[in-house]
Structure formats: structure tokens, C-alpha cells
């Protein structure tokens, strides 16, 4: 997932931790699994583009949910907020 989103290890850990707390234990594994299906190269060729978007969206929305996460992904916050 880190590679699929182009994130560093620290960024991934931070965003995943926030997403996990936000969506809870029950919804989290399902979103991770759906994201993996949508972005794993060998698997994703077997499903249409629109379905890949539907599978990836729940986790991406949970990861990039608000202004702070948005600023992190776009590099604006990376220097001052990531340990």
C-alpha cells in the first residue's frame, strides 16, 4: 500500500493509525483487503477500472479524510509533522 500511494513508511504508519481509529476495527481489514485487490498488479488486470475505483475508494477516503491528511499527502505538512 505504501508503494501504491507513494508514501514513506512514517507517513503510512501515521495515516493508517488515524484511519484505524476513525473507522474502527471492524471496517478496517475489509478496506485494506479491498484496496489490495484494487492495486495489486496481477489481480487488478482481472477487474474493470470502475470496480477498481470502488474497491480503492473506502480506504483512500479514510486515509485522506480532512485538511491535515490532505496537506500531508501533498507534501505541505511533511517536514513539520512527520517525526
Amino acid at each position: 500500500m505504501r508503494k501504491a500511494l507513494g508514501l514513506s513508511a512514517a507517513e503510512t504508519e501515521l495515516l493508517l493509525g488515524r484511519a484505524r481509529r476513525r473507522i474502527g476495527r471492524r471496517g478496517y481489514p475489509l478496506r485494506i483487503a479491498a484496496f489490495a485487490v484494487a492495486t495489486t498488479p496481477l489481480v487488478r488486470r482481472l477487474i474493470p477500472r470502475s470496480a477498481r475505483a470502488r474497491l480503492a475508494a473506502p480506504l483512500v477516503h479514510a486515509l485522506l479524510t480532512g485538511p491535515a491528511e490532505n496537506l500531508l499527502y501533498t507534501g505541505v505538512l511533511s517536514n513539520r509533522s512527520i517525526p
Partner: protein
Amino acid sequence: MLVARELLAAGEEVTIVERGPLRLDADSLPADRREARMASTEHNTGPSPRKGGHPWLYGYAFGGSSLTWSGVAPRLLPSDFETHSRFGFGRDWPIDYDDLLPYFREAEQVMRVSGTVSKLFPGTDSYPLPPARPSAVDRMLGPLLEPFEPLPVARPELHSHGYPPPLEGGLDTVEPSFTMLEVARELVGSDGLAIVDRAAAARLRTSGGRVSGVECVAADGSRSEISARRVVAAAHGIENAALLLRSGLEGPAVGRWLNAHTHVVLQLELDRPIDHGDAQTRDSSISYAWTEGEWRSDRASAVVIPFNPGMLVREGVVEGLASGRDGAELRREMSERFARTAVVYASLEDLPREDRFVELSSSRDALGLPRSEVHFPPDSDYVERGLQEVCTGLEERLAPLGARVVGRGLGGRGGHMLGTCFMGPEGVVDENLRHHSIENLYLAGGSAFPTYSALHPTVTIAALALRLGQHLVRDGA
């Protein structure tokens, strides 16, 4: 709450009936958990099956919809009270800006609104708090979008907490705003105040042109009746109308002329980057470039507010992932797009429309009360013309920045429920918000607006509530 504040200060006795539980710390919770779940807080609005759906954003909670408010707190303009005389649409309010001026000032004090003196809103020397400093987006766009001024907001904690919310902090990224719980915390425990919480005002029992009792249904299904010398219904535009309809107080204007502002999010691609991290608050300035003019007879008035967080990238990321883009390359591209994209939202005024209305549904809610069926057909061409003018004007005014409108979508909508019990001779209440037929019934809240302005209604609602409270004190003396 503000009506109660005035009455209690004058030594009157007040009983507040509220659907939600009395939780004085609810505003410390994330916004989506401030409304407790119980039978009396089940949202009872449904779309008309014939007219399509529409989101309605409100809170059944002690403190009401202030618990879901974002804190944007401009007044209405003087001309907003006189649209019929000045522009030939709608109805003039039976009161004008000057009548409300002292109550605007008081409401801004109570809500600790930050802002600066503006020629557009005469009669004010200062706001209780200074405005947030202009963001990088404000500094770039503002000189080209005059009149461009600090946005009055009632979220003063913001200035000390900084923006954006730190990633290491909690999950609640909603900036703290003023809520009516701040007033409630002062009132609870006052001599003369009784609170009936977890209960809906189901019906008004009337006799001889007066309310003789308020029938209440509690969350546990128990019923009670409260008697009072005077009754103030202070719910939102849908619920105030529904209470009258449930009480058999129909009339040609009751429930009619419902309005919710159209909020449109516009993405503007610029030829240079913006530092979206350089901001003190979510939104800090407002442009009145498309707000005021004789053209209001033909197209909608609009205010334009830069959105400091900028473009939310998640949809672009999803699309990129679905296309099989490399992660690092996608992030680079999205970051560049993000940096060169300014986001503004436009709030527009629609004409008063009789085909937007509330009526009682045949279905019932968890308390056994009829649901409110809301008819809200799409915006009129008047709004579309106003929006087109904003889009064209933004590209023209921002041409020195190479601006192009590259995205347009509906923003959050449905939190301003106005107009269903409007004030005026043809309406439901008089200039003191007293019902035309029921002499001891008053309607506070946005339902009393005869027209809607493009500006956010909350401070005007608060000013009307303070004015009503002081009127009741004088009237009862």
C-alpha cells in the same frame, strides 16, 4: 436559548422543551457524536416521493443546530430586508437593518464573533474579537476580488489552536465553533428555569385564539402537557412549520416558501502555486463582488469564500489508482495540481418559491408523530444565472493569475432551513414574531425570514431571538 436568556434575566419563569438530552458538554465531542441517539432525536424529515431527495442538516439536541454549525457569522445586508422595494422580488421584511442593528451587535457579543468594521454593514465600531489573519489564498485572490473582507466567524478558539489541526492530535478535524451550550451553561441552575429534555413538543393545544397547552411526547413514549402564558417555538424552518401543521394551525403560508442556500464549490486552476498550509482557519475572508447591485432583479446575489484547505485530493487519488498509475508519480502530480488549485465556495440566494414546502407525511416517526415531507425542487434559473456570472467573473477578475474554473460541484447544503413561517402581513407572524391568529404564540428561528439573502443566516436568527426576548420582557411587564 437566547429568548430564554432574556426572560430569565428579567426574572421571568421559563420552561424549555428539547428533543435531545441535556448534555452540557456535548460540544466537546466530535461534531457527528453531539446528537444522542434516541426516539426523540430520530430525524423525522423525509423527501417527497414525487420531488426527489435533499439533505437536511440539523441537530435534535440541547443547543440545537448550533452544535453542527461551522461558525460563519456575517449579518444580512441592509438591502436584504428590502428586496421587493429595491429589486422587485420577494417581500420586504416588516423590519429593517436599523431595527436589528442593536441586536446584531448584541448577538455578536454573545457569540464572540471575530471580524472587522465594514462599510457594507453600517453602524458598528468594532467586533468583539479581531479577525483571523488573511491566508495565503486570501492574499493572492483578495486584491482582485474586492470588496474582499475578513469573514466574520464565531470560532474564537481557533486563533489559539492554529490551523490546520495537527496530525499528531485527535481525530476531530472540525474547528471548534461557538455553540448555544455556552449560553446554556450560564442558564442552567438559574432561578425560574425548568428543562424538559428528551421530549418533543408534539402539538399546541389552542383555545380562544391562545395556546392553552403544549403536548409533549418523551423518548420513552410517555406524554405530558405543559401550560404557559406565552409559547415560543424555536426550532428550524421545517420543524417550526411541522409543529403548526400538527397542531391544526394551517394557513396559506404555513410550511411554504422553504429555502436552503445553494453552496457551490468551484475549483480554480492558477498559473502559480499557493501555500495552502499558510492559514489560521478554514475560511478567513469573503468577497462581496457579486453580492449587491440592481441586477439582483435578474440574477442571484452571491458571496464567494476562499476555502483555505484547498482541493481535497482523495477523488483524484482513487481515479489514479484505478488507472494503474505509479504511486510516487501520482502523488507528485496530485501535489502539483493541489498547489495550483484554489478552491472557493459560492453561496447564492434563490427567489422565494411556493413550490418548496413542508407538509405532513402519512408515515410516522418513532414517537408516533407524522413525519415532515419536504418538497424541494431544483434551483431556479435565477440561481443558475447568478452562478454563471460568478464563474465568468472569477476568470475575468483573476486573469492576472491565469485562473480557469476547472471544477464545479454542490457543496454542503441543507443546514439553512428558512422561510416556512415568514413575518409580514401575508405571512404567519408579525414583526415581533407573534403568530397572526394565536396571540400568545411566537416563532423564533429562520422560519420567519421573508427572503433569504446570499449570506449565512445564523447571526440574524440570533439577533431576532434577542429582539423577541426583549420584546417579551417589555410586553409582559
